[in-house]
């Protein structure tokens, strides 16, 4: 069987470093590690830049499905683009392996029988950081929130978790998106006296906010800084000096065990010295699982392959054992990381210490709560 995988992501914008060329490399590595050709599956990979614009992304997706016989689209960071690709994939009856996007709507009100949401989602981030932080004693929160739907959703979900876990939310300030200067918002957060300052934003906003938080001595002043969506590459960009003490939730860390280290070393060699982000890891694992399903079915028919993917437990070196739920949610453990102090870090990319592990069954939104139409 010939299989064509399209890796659609951001190759020029703010997510290019966490899910750009690296995701393509991850997909290639999955194909190689799977030894697809030996198994009679001919895999080709194409890639494109959606520039974080939903119309560009949906145009490419359509064109891939309609004219280039692409069978499966992988990655797609940026929720707006992912939601568009999600719709098109459903319409065209293909498969979407969503590793990049954050929106939990993909397995909620926008859920689709053709989509697997692999790595993480906003609910899992909010839940991980919110509940684990409260459990660690961070029971009063102040949010610095990007003023648009994504930020609002993160703030809302995390607030709910914090309150459910017995903490309380002291307040929130909405900053314009994108922002560059966060000093006055951070000052307001500082003034609130909250134990945890939650950054409900992403990308450059988070990076700048963290940088300036260190400048204003937020963490030194005894407040904890929790980034609700952050990647290891962001920490790399910030440097430990600035990022130390920051708390964040993730699905993958390269230094977790021997298998992840082995993969990451190979990946790093091919990706200009960068360790894999959780998204790239998710691309690897999801492609691998897809290929296994194709092999098992012996055909690439979307419905059959999807059924197989959901039926078969997942197993890969990066996420270990897991399952895919009826709504398309891939379940695995999530982790609460804290960024190390510079003197604790022994090597480049030695950035995280694991504070808590959130078991797979607790890490993601319960099936019934998502409002997915596939769930009866």
């Amino acid at each position, binding site marked *: 069987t010939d299989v064509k995988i399209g890796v659609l992501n951001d190759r*020029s*914008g*703010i*997510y*290019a*470093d*966490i899910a750009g060329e690296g995701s393509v490399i991850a997909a290639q590595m999955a194909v190689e590690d799977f030894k697809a050709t030996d198994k009679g599956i001919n895999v080709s990979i194409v890639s494109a830049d959606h520039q974080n614009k939903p119309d560009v992304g949906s145009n490419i997706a359509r064109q891939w499905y309609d004219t280039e016989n692409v069978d499966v689209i992988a990655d797609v960071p940026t929720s707006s683009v992912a939601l568009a690709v999600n719709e098109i994939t459903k319409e065209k009856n293909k498969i979407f392996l969503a590793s990049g996007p954050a929106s939990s709507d993909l397995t909620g009100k926008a859920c689709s029988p053709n989509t697997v949401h692999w790595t993480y989602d906003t609910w899992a981030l909010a839940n991980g950081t919110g509940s684990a932080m409260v459990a660690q004693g961070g029971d009063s929160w102040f949010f610095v929130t990007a*003023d648009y739907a994504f930020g609002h959703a993160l703030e809302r979900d995390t607030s709910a978790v914090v309150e459910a876990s017995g903490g309380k939310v002291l307040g929130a*300030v*909405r*900053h*314009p*998106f*994108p*922002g*560059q*200067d966060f*000093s*006055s*918002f951070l*000052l*307001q957060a*500082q*003034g609130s006296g909250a134990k945890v300052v939650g950054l409900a934003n992403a*990308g*450059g906003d988070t*990076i*700048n906010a963290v*940088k*300036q938080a260190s*400048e*204003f*001595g937020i963490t030194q002043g005894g407040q904890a800084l929790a980034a609700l969506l952050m990647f290891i*590459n*962001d920490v*790399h*960009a*910030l*440097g430990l*000096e*600035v990022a130390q003490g920051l708390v964040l939730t993730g699905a993958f860390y390269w230094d977790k065990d021997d298998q992840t280290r082995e993969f990451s070393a190979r990946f790093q060699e091919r990706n200009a010295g960068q360790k894999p982000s959780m998204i790239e890891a998710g691309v690897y694992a999801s492609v691998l699982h897809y290929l296994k399903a194709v092999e098992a079915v012996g055909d690439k028919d979307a419905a059959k392959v999807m059924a197989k993917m959901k039926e078969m437990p997942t197993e890969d070196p990066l996420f270990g054992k897991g399952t895919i739920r009826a709504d398309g949610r891939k379940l695995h453990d999530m982790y609460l990381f804290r960024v190390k102090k510079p003197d604790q870090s022994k090597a480049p990319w030695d950035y995280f210490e694991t504070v808590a592990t959130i078991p797979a069954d607790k890490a993601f939104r319960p099936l019934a709560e998502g409002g997915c139409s596939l769930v009866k």
Partner: protein
Amino acid sequence: MFELLGIPPQVLFGQLLLGLINGSFYAVLSLGLAVIFGLLNIINFTHGAQYMLGAFGAWMLLNYLGVGYWWAVFIVPPIVGVTGIVLERVLIRRLYHLDHLYGLLLTFGLALIIVGFFRQFFGVSGLPYRPPPLLNGGYNLGFMYLPNSRAWVIVASLIVCLATWFIIEKTRLGAYLRAATENPTMVGAFGINVPLLVTLTYGFGVALAGFAGVLAAPIYAVNPNMGADLIIVVFAVVVIGGMGSILGSILTGFGLGLIEGLTRVFYPEGSAVVIFVIMALVLLVKPAGLFGRSV
């Protein structure tokens, strides 16, 4: 303890101070734009990219050559200025006899190219720039904790703005510049090398952008996209101040920083639009901006 509109005064002072610091960036950047527009009649859309170059310049000096921040403050702006001079000599020079529109489009294109290359080679998550020891830490002013890095921004930009204003308004060189703005042909006929003056002015305006970039490096992430959105705001500042007006751009830069700072306290959601609202209002009432000479 009295309160203003439900905000304790120390918080308000703190926010005003932060606004002023932000305004420092606006002032230095819009000053560069105003100088360039004043003499060359070019709306320099590359300014954001040149600001970014300043930050990257500081980063490269530190990471490739081990040259620290304090040296960078003096070395980088001239280097960025020289890149501007090259652009002016090779490309921009050909557009002086044309409508503003073309200068704007050319520099817009240049900005795309420069930013594109930096994104290609440095990625977009940004690079860390470690501030020098002197800028770490800060003062407790009572009403707020003022990081040294911010205090330095305000001092440095005030010095640069005042120096620029002084040079342009009070010196002989400044008189040449102002005269050449009005009538370059006549100034040339007095024996003054106007093309050189123009080139140096562009270089100087660009160097100001580079300087702002160096100031920004320890504060904001060093990122190829750092100038892209800022530039639109800075344009608004220049237009509000009155295109080409030196004093106008400085005062408006600081002033709008303050107003933006206040908005962040009272209506944070609106802080990104407030400058545009002000721009629309100002232009409808004062067509040439607050300090602009009416045409």
